[in-house]
């Protein structure tokens, strides 16, 4: 049921057109941060307003929307954003990655491989990969223009000098098609390989910082590293305790105050699908498909 007081997907058509122009520019120049006139949304800045605006500009009445936060469909902010689009756009929603035409995400890329025609919209807090090395936007824009990325390599090198390894575990910077260094949003570096050569269109929206950027399908994306310290995606060295998956990113859940903990898939749809297919982890119980 949609709310008739507002236009389809909340934003007016002129605003959506403005956002689509920024998206098209982003698609044409992969990894480049396109300034756009971000609107004030009815949810706070920093809570996904960039992603919400990109989603609003891309949605059509025939779309099926999935919203995840930390990989899960049922975290409060994902619930809130999904509800917003159910109310203002009346689109179908799903938790199944494969059934969604548009997925808005915060901090994760779904485990299941995306397919041609799907759009993945990332919520981005700080779009500038150089921001914590140089706080001034006027300077960082210049650095991108001149392809002056020495500073970020120095930072990674200093990590190795101090810790023996690159101490960046999320929002790990990537280089897009050999040109722009890009912040993949705060996804764990475990997800970085999925950025590259994805058949899906990947769009990044930063509302407060007024930036949109994009990775068109099959864009070559490389995580920054050194020959003698190659990039390593990492995850907790465990299997999921519910579904037994050994290849998925895991959340650590504290189960008591005696140091007890278990590890479960952060991607709730992936985990449930596996459980329903009969896979069983160390602490899982058999599930009947569609049953309680």
């Amino acid at each position, binding site marked *: 049921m949609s709310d008739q007081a507002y236009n389809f997907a909340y934003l007016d058509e002129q605003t959506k057109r403005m956002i689509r122009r920024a998206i098209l520019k982003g698609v044409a120049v992969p990894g480049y941060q396109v300034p756009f006139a971000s609107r004030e949304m009815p949810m706070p800045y920093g809570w996904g307003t960039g992603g919400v605006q990109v989603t609003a500009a891309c949605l059509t009445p025939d779309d099926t929307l999935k919203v995840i936060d930390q990989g899960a469909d049922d975290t409060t902010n994902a619930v809130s954003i999904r509800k917003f689009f159910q109310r203002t756009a009346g689109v179908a929603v799903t938790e199944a990655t494969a059934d969604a035409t548009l997925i808005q995400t915060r901090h994760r890329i779904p485990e299941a491989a995306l397919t041609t025609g799907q759009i993945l919209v990332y919520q981005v807090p700080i779009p500038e990969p150089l921001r914590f090395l140089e706080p001034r936007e006027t300077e960082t824009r210049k650095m991108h223009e001149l392809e002056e990325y020495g500073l970020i390599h120095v930072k990674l090198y200093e990590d190795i000098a101090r810790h023996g390894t690159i101490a960046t575990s999320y929002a790990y910077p990537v280089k897009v098609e050999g040109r722009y260094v890009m912040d993949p949003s705060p996804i*764990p570096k475990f997800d970085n390989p999925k950025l590259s050569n994805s058949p899906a269109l990947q769009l990044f929206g930063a509302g*407060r910082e007024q930036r949109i950027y994009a990775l068109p399908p099959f864009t070559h994306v490389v995580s920054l590293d050194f020959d003698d310290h190659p990039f390593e995606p990492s995850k907790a060295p465990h299997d999921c305790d519910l579904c037994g998956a050994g290849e998925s990113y895991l959340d650590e859940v504290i189960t008591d105050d005696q140091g007890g903990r278990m590890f479960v898939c952060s991607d709730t749809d992936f985990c449930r699908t596996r459980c329903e297919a009969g896979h069983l982890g160390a602490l899982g119980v058999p599930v009947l498909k569609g049953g309680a």
Partner: protein
Amino acid sequence: MYVAVKGGERAIDNAHAWLAEERRGDLGVAELSVAQIRAQLSLAVNRVMAEGSLYDPDLAALAIKQARGDLIEAIFLIRAYRTTLPRLGASCPVNTAEMAVIRRISATFKDLPGGQVLGPTFDYTHRLLDFKLAAEGEAAQAATAPAAMEAVPHVMAMLDRDGMIEAEPLGNDVPADLTREPMELPGSRALRLQAITRGDEGFILSMAYSTQRGYGRTHAFVGELRIGAVAVEMEIPELGFAVEIGEIELTECETVNQFKGSKTEPPQFTRGYGLVFGQTERKAIAMSLVDRSLRWAELGEDYTGAPAQDEEFVLMHADNVQATGFLEHIKLPHYVDFQSELELVRRLRAEVFATQEAAE
């Protein structure tokens, strides 16, 4: 057996219901009406209009009621509503020289055409709690005088006539609109003023205060502070002339600042400017100081590294709706990122212990 937390939707609905109940408070106490807020908390209403960038006292009062008196939350409600409104056009510049002033003071001249008009100010009240108000005592009727009909000229216009103050020629540029275009820096002065007038009162106040304490001092005098109603006019293309579409209350502050002159220009005073919706005097004065401070480059002054001289620092951090949203978003789940940090720190610690053991 572990079961993942579910039911986010029901938790959210219940939280909203509880919030609504808390907002209403004790049912034994009469409900506050929007009209009461508008009439009796008018300075709060003014702040919400100014920082919400929407001149509508009724909506601002409603927002304050809905936000339980949290003014930044009320400002956010107004901003979110404002953004859904169509933009029909731009008004003609308001003529503050024609303002029907309720308050007008100058700190630079003892007396001047139009006079010093104190108006409804806290300035010389003794800040003693008035316990009569707790007993709901009605205010005595204030004395009245017939309103002066003639316009009150600007102090700056008088200084300008003698060439004592930098000229500020009229421009025909269409000002940028920071709510419709992404902010690109360095910005024009008009853009800076737009950002400051809707910026957080506390932030602008502190920035201005820092200039007074020496972080980018500009030696400001309040040339003039005026509060009153001005007519808003708009060119109607079909008519070919401007018609008055309404009236708004504004506070305007113009400061006179020292300028030593340069090789090409003789010594002259310079300007700082503040203009804010409603009776918002503290904000308007602070705005004029911050405006002047940010003008160091065009006036050929030194950059001393003071925060109030740093355009990017001031403009990127003045907006309280942006600031509060980003600050509070750290309440949202960050399990995934934290998990990746946990693994990293565990691995680094394991490596350190392994090295120590090997050494022993």
